[in-house]
């Protein structure tokens, strides 16, 4: 299971990161159910009468829903069983709950919003139907929905008046006009429904999904939700109880990147530090590494991966199997919980994801005959071997290959701070090659400054510039060396934001671009742009320039509705701009990455 992303809902479910556009016809057990359902629940199933003509589960083009009926939920006894039957056949619990919440939201929003928005909501309502099948819990909402509509309408009106509502605001900030008793009753009814959700769902998965969904709650009151949001208070509270890191609201989100977890980590550090000794389930070394991620002390693909693996090593050393549990399963669950903690601190990098996959693979492959101490020792040595072979030795091999491409008189350009590129430059300098280095840097991280300091300390001739001058400086350059967070199957280089620009300018001037990346960071997915998968950083650092307090024009950017700050961490460089990829398997053209992935995966089976 790929832990870098929340696990897909298995059947009939929608991959959470995909924007839903258009109507999805409900996937029903029997066609006869549909008309009954449609008649009884034209609200959430508004699209279904026309949709029932289509084959179940197909995505139909956008349809104009029939007008909503005010009395669509005359709650009769046929309604719950019918809906129950339909609802009973969908699989994923988390998404069902998610769409469940959305369907409620759909109802609320349809009242107050324009019809076009309402379409989207009914759309979600359809999805709710599709996804809610199988959740025996959801049908109990039908009666309560009818009751709570009025309350929520009033609440919404009151909310519209508020500038920003906290997550808890929905429950506690019930303004005047709402019937607190009824609302509480309704919400407690919902809460009980939620708790009825069978724990069959991977708790880790739902937890992850919840924590990722939470910050995406829409702040803009009028903009329709393009995605399913967890607006439900009880859901939020439940997630908050589970979550170790407090997720606070993120503000002023950029529309295009709403599918990504928003940056909420800035305020977590003091909170987590205070909790250091209280958290039983999380091993202290794992906690420590998580804090280091949060604070930014440990960054860079290799650094993070090594820190994570070493903390796992410690955790495994101190691990003891609880009675009546098998080591492999329990340890895997434990590792998964650690991983979700790391994700809360900072989304996983691809290198970390691959390492976790390796570790889980090794745990799963432990022979059952091993005693606990032997198994632990074997796992620890596996981790050591992974770090040694795939990172340390791989770096040495990369350096030995790359050094053949550094000639006397070269002007080498590098961007940001890559550990491998730094090793190459050091080694070339040790061998006495005559070259000079241009370090290109960019805000807000300014990682190049650290690299610059270290190179100059070794006596390498360096020039330093910011990325706005890259086209100016590129004329002097003979080679460009770049690091990568990962290389994807189509040869796309996934690296620090700004890398693509540097590579593009180099390509335009015919300068070879050499990307240095260890093979364990390769991944088989394909990405065509920098938007579908990325990491969002803290927008506040964009608004301030350190050392220039007078540049405070963006001081109150959160107050401005029309202003959003975007701080991306990664970008995707198309393979056309890359001349060569240097890995521990040698020097390859970008087209050969899937070959290495294929061979590398095979090797992993025998590792």
């Amino acid at each position, binding site marked *: 299971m790929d832990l870098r992303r929340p696990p897909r809902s298995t059947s009939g479910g929608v991959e959470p990161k995909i924007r839903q556009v258009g109507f999805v016809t409900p996937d029903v057990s029997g066609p006869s159910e549909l008309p009954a359902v449609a008649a009884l629940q034209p609200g959430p199933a508004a699209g279904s009468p026309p949709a029932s003509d289509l084959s179940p589960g197909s995505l139909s083009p956008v349809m104009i829903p029939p007008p909503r009926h005010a009395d669509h939920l005359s709650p009769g006894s046929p309604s719950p069983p019918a809906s129950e039957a339909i609802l009973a056949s969908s699989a994923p619990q988390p998404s069902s709950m998610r769409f469940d919440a959305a369907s409620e939201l759909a109802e609320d929003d349809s009242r107050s919003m324009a019809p076009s928005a309402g379409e989207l909501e009914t759309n979600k309502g359809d999805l709710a139907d599709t996804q809610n099948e199988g959740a025996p819990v959801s049908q109990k909402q039908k009666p309560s929905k009818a009751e709570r509509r009025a309350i929520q309408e009033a609440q919404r009106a009151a909310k519209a008046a508020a500038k920003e509502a906290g997550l808890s605001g929905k429950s506690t900030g019930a303004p005047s006009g709402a019937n607190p008793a009824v609302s509480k009753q309704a919400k407690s009814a919902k809460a009980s429904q939620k708790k009825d959700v069978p724990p069959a769902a991977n708790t880790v998965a739902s937890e992850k999904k919840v924590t990722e969904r939470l910050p995406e709650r829409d702040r803009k009151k009028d903009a329709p939700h393009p995605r399913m949001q967890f607006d439900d208070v009880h859901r939020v509270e439940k997630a908050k109880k589970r979550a170790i890191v407090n997720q606070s609201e993120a503000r002023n989100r950029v529309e295009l990147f709403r599918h990504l977890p928003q940056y909420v980590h800035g305020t977590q550090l003091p909170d987590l530090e205070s909790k250091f000794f209280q958290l039983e389930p999380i091993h202290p070394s794992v906690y420590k590494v998580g804090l280091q991620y949060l604070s930014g002390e440990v960054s860079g693909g290799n650094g993070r991966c090594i820190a994570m693996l070493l903390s796992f090593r410690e955790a495994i050393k101190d691990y003891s199997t609880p009675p009546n549990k098998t080591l492999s399963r329990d340890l895997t669950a434990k590792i998964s919980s650690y991983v979700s903690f790391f994700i809360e601190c900072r989304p996983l990098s691809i290198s970390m994801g691959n390492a976790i996959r390796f570790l889980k693979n090794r745990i799963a492959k432990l022979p059952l005959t091993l005693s606990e101490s032997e198994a632990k020792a074997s796992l620890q040595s596996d981790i050591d071997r992974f770090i040694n072979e795939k990172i340390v030795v791989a770096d040495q091999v990369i350096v030995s290959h790359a050094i053949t*491409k550094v000639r006397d008189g070269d002007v080498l350009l590098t961007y940001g701070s890559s550990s491998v590129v730094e090793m190459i430059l050091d080694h070339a300098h040790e061998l006495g090659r005559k070259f000079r280095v241009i370090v290109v840097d960019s805000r807000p991280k300014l990682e190049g400054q650290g690299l610059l300091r270290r190179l100059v300390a070794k006596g390498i001739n360096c020039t330093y510039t910011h990325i706005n001058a890259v086209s100016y400086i590129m004329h002097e350059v003979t080679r460009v060396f770049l690091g990568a967070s990962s290389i994807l199957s189509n040869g796309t280089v996934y690296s620090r934001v700004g890398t693509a620009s540097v590579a593009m300018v180099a390509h335009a001037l015919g300068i070879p671009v050499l990307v240095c990346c260890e093979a364990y960071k390769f991944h088989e997915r394909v990405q065509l742009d920098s938007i579908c998968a990325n990491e969002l950083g803290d927008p506040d650092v964009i608004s301030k320039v350190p050392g220039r307090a007078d540049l405070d024009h963006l001081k109150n950017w959160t107050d401005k509705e029309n202003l959003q700050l975007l701080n991306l961490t990664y970008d995707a460089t198309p393979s056309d701009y890359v001349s*060569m990829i240097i890995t521990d398997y040698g020097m390859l053209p970008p087209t*050969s990455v899937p070959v290495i992935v294929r061979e590398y995966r095979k090797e992993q089976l025998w590792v």
Partner: protein
Amino acid sequence: MAMELDAAQNPNPNPDPPISAYYQTRADHHAVVSSDWLAHAAAAASSVTDTDADAAPPPSPGGNGGGVIEEFNMWRRKPEAAEAVAAIMALTAVIRSSRATTMMELEIELKKASDKLKSWDATSISLSAACDLFMRFVTRTSHLEHEKFDAAKSRLIERGEKFGEISLKARKTIAMLSQDFILDGCTMLVHGYSRVVLEILKLAASNRKLFRVLCTEGRPDRTGLRMSNEIAALGIPVKVLIDSAVAYSMDEIDMIFVGADGVVESGGIINMMGTYQIALVAHSMNKPLYVAAESYKFARLYPLDQKDMTPAHRPIDFGVPVPAGVEIETSARDYTPPQYLTLLLTDLGVLTPSVVSDELIQLYL
């Protein structure tokens, strides 16, 4: 560098500056080659083989190197034999005449012989590629077998000879694969004297296809004249162009065939000077460029630009004395990046340039 200084000081640059031996060989061949001579030479060479094999010097642990070079030279003198194939035959002979008693010893001997061959001509890519390939072949074999040394050795010899056979037959395979690309009434451009391309044309002519060939003059190797000689002997209409006239004639050309000195990891080729130019013109005018290369020419090199290769020089005779103080660019070959190549016709099949790395990875990793 030294060579260019010489050229500057001597009004008449003479062949004393270090010429790539690879090209020297071809010059020796091409100076007098004609189809008839080929037949005679082949016959003569085969009779020479027997006596040479007997007269091979008894191998001593350190003296193998010399034996290899002689053997190699013997094979190389056959005009039909590619240099790489000659190397492979020579290495097989090393195994045959080796006195080693363990696999390790044998491998060490082979390594020494291979290094000796490679150093004999550092600029020949196919030579070093073939040596590496053979070593790889051998080490793979030796790791798999757990039998007695003699059995393993004879297996190695068998493999080596088979390898040599395959390489010799490679040209025939490529010729067969290429027939589909030659259509009746087409006009093709050839550049450089490639025996593989010649084989292709021979087969096409014998299949009675109607086509005509434009041939570049190919200075300084004078390949154009030789090539056109050969082609005319096959009965194919041929026209010779000066190198600068390629763009001028590109309109009437349907496809371009070239050979390769080496195929590099990126999928690009290293070939006679002028190939890159032709590739650029063809690309801009959307004409396909087909490269005919045997698979032992796949090398683990990765040039980033034209200067990123081991330089190989040819003397260029302009016919008139060059004034003092004037430098001459004497590089004999250039690198064509993969985006300008349409297809590679090899004995492994018809490949796209990106497959080369795939093959190399599968072989070497």
